[in-house]
């Protein structure tokens, strides 16, 4: 079995809410509340969910950019929590970020050359002669011309800026790139260019990618495996094909049916969720989705559903499947293990 590039185990990130002169902690924002997943070398994972579901926090916690409350993040088998600053710095060379807004993520006072040189200076890589070659190569890779290296960010369009952001992430030859909504701020025609670029880079450089996005359609195009989050928890995780063909969790289903399809012939009435995402400060008990779930049952507000494993490595946390198997197990106790067979990742 291959060792995963990164393994996240029961990760929790809670932000304290402080009040008063003594700054007493009066509560917590349960941004990420116990999630586990692995990423293999060369694999692309998508994390999807509505705003406030903790997808960005999960990504930031992986690179240790936000303090972890509990749980572990292992990088190639070593726990990142025990590392000192210099250890972390060396590690961060291998994991890079791409941000959503190409307007605010590039320093307007630096030329493209300076922007791309910065990470190389920090890590003392590609010095001297190599530097120019490297920058030319990077710009060429992301579809810009090396002649544009001495321009400032404001001289580029949104799509080109995002390409600069991607070139910066590639500068140090990383193994993992985390893209936080890398295409949501772009126009549709530009979005397609960037999606194709990311796919090409992933192939050419054998990168692992984590794409954090609210757009299930975008994620489907780039990712091998998709994780659906709701209020700090993973509700479903599966291969892209399995997830789109056979979504298990009611939340995934509603999320998919909410996406408008560009085909007027298919104007079907959709499943429309009532209300908004509840506050992560005081998440609902039991299943966190029970307040909005169309398939809600009595058990849902009382007991938190366990992760159910299905045959193809597809997992979902929902009592619907619980009941089915529980009934099965009542009749013939042997069946209880059936859905867990043969899904060792």
């Amino acid at each position, binding site marked *: 079995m291959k060792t995963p590039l990164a393994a996240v185990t029961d990760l929790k990130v809670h932000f304290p809410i402080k009040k008063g002169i003594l700054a007493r902690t009066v509560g917590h924002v349960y941004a990420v509340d116990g999630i586990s997943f692995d990423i293999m070398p060369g694999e692309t994972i998508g994390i999807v969910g*509505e*705003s406030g579901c903790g997808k960005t926090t999960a990504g930031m916690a992986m690179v240790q950019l936000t303090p972890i409350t509990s749980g572990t993040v292992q990088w190639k088998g070593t726990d990142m929590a025990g590392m000192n600053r210099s250890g972390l710095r060396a590690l961060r060379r291998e994991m890079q970020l791409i941000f959503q807004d190409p307007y605010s993520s590039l320093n307007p006072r630096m030329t493209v050359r300076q922007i791309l040189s910065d990470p190389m200076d920090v890590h003392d890589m590609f010095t001297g002669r190599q530097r120019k070659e490297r920058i030319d190569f990077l710009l060429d890779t992301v579809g810009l011309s090396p002649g544009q290296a001495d321009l400032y960010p404001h001289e580029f*369009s*949104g*799509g*080109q800026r995002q390409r600069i952001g991607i070139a910066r992430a590639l500068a140090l030859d990383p193994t993992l790139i985390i893209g936080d909504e890398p295409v949501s701020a772009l*126009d*549709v*025609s*530009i*979005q*397609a*260019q960037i*999606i*194709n670029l990311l*796919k090409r880079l992933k192939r050419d450089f054998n990168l692992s990618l984590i794409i954090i996005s*609210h*757009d*299930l*359609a*975008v994620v*489907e*195009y780039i990712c091998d495996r998709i994780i659906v989050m709701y209020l700090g928890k993973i509700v479903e995780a599966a291969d*892209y*094909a399995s997830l*789109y*063909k056979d979504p298990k969790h009611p939340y995934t289903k*509603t*999320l*998919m*049916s*909410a*996406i*408008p*399809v*560009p*085909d*007027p*012939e*298919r*104007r079907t009435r*959709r499943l*429309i*969720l*009532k*209300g*908004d*995402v509840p506050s992560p400060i005081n998440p609902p008990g039991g299943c966190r989705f029970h307040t909005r779930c169309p398939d809600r049952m009595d058990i849902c507000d009382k007991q938190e559903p366990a992760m159910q494993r299905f045959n193809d490595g597809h997992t979902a946390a929902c009592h619907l499947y619980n009941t089915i198997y529980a009934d099965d197990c009542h009749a013939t106790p042997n069946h209880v293990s059936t859905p867990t067979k043969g899904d060792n990742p």
Partner: protein
Amino acid sequence: MCANRFLTPTFCIGAAVNKNRSEPVLSIDSLKTHFFSRKGVARAVDGVSFDLTPGEVTGIVGESGCGKSVTALSVMGLVPNPPGRVVDGRILFHGKNLLDLDIKALRKIRGAGIAMIFQEPMTSLNPVYTIGNQISEMFRLHKGYDKKQALAAAVDMLERVQIPSPGKRVNEYPHQLSGGMRQRAMIAMAMSCDPEILIADEPTTALDVTVQAQILDLMHRLKDDFSTAIQLITHDLGVIAEMADQVVVMYAGQVVEKARTRELFQHTLHPYTRGLLASIPVLGHRTRGMDEDLVEIKGMIPSLHNLPSGCRFSNRCPQVMEKCKNLLPELTDMYGGHQVRCWLHTKGASA
């Protein structure tokens, strides 16, 4: 109610007649809005024409900078001047050219006759006034209600847009509401004087998909109830397919294609529209083994200061011909009201 809406009784009769469908309630006729700066003239809207029909949704699609929002602002008389100015064209609302009206007359129409909702509800609601205060202002200004009546009407409106416990929400400030709720409040405000036209500028772009579905559903229902003409500005062709009856595709300040929604999606004529449709990731396509890679439109939108001399799409068009680079094609009628601005479809193209 009608008498409050417009100044003159004759206007009112006009409004009543126009409530029957098919007759346009607003006609934009070769509108040109240009921006003048040191860099030169930016022709943001350059000869745009289309009609809005009661009870219909007209979708305006295009990428950022194509002039779709400026068209809407021109209708509302909200183009910042300077640097912007409507230099030519007419905007006929019940036969009256809105461009000829003075600010006072325009104010009577804004909100009461034509209302607008914006993309980011947080920036268009005033943070220091309660929701109720802002909605009831509409009733006080346009219908002459007193404070108490207006507040009661505001609660009514909040209920109509399905905000839970409207009696309580009416006294809350915008920051106390969620994004979807704020957009509902904006819609409540826009619909409060029963406008004939609602201009929605990217109303769901800042919202989550699940909330977007709620808002679109709400707009659909309101349109049917009030037979409002909706001008829906968006870059999302999915939203268009779902909502619009008629679609206007804009590129670099011009209409490049215009058709009924079904017709547009089934017989897409303009290479730009085709490119747009092919470049959107569609849920389930990859899973079903369709297009592994997305089709991209090469290059980017030309600067409005420096437009190509021929067809404005010519530098990105996959089917570009020699003619396209020099001559700007006219918007040409095809069949069944389908219009397209492209040499591929304009007679005499085989030059």
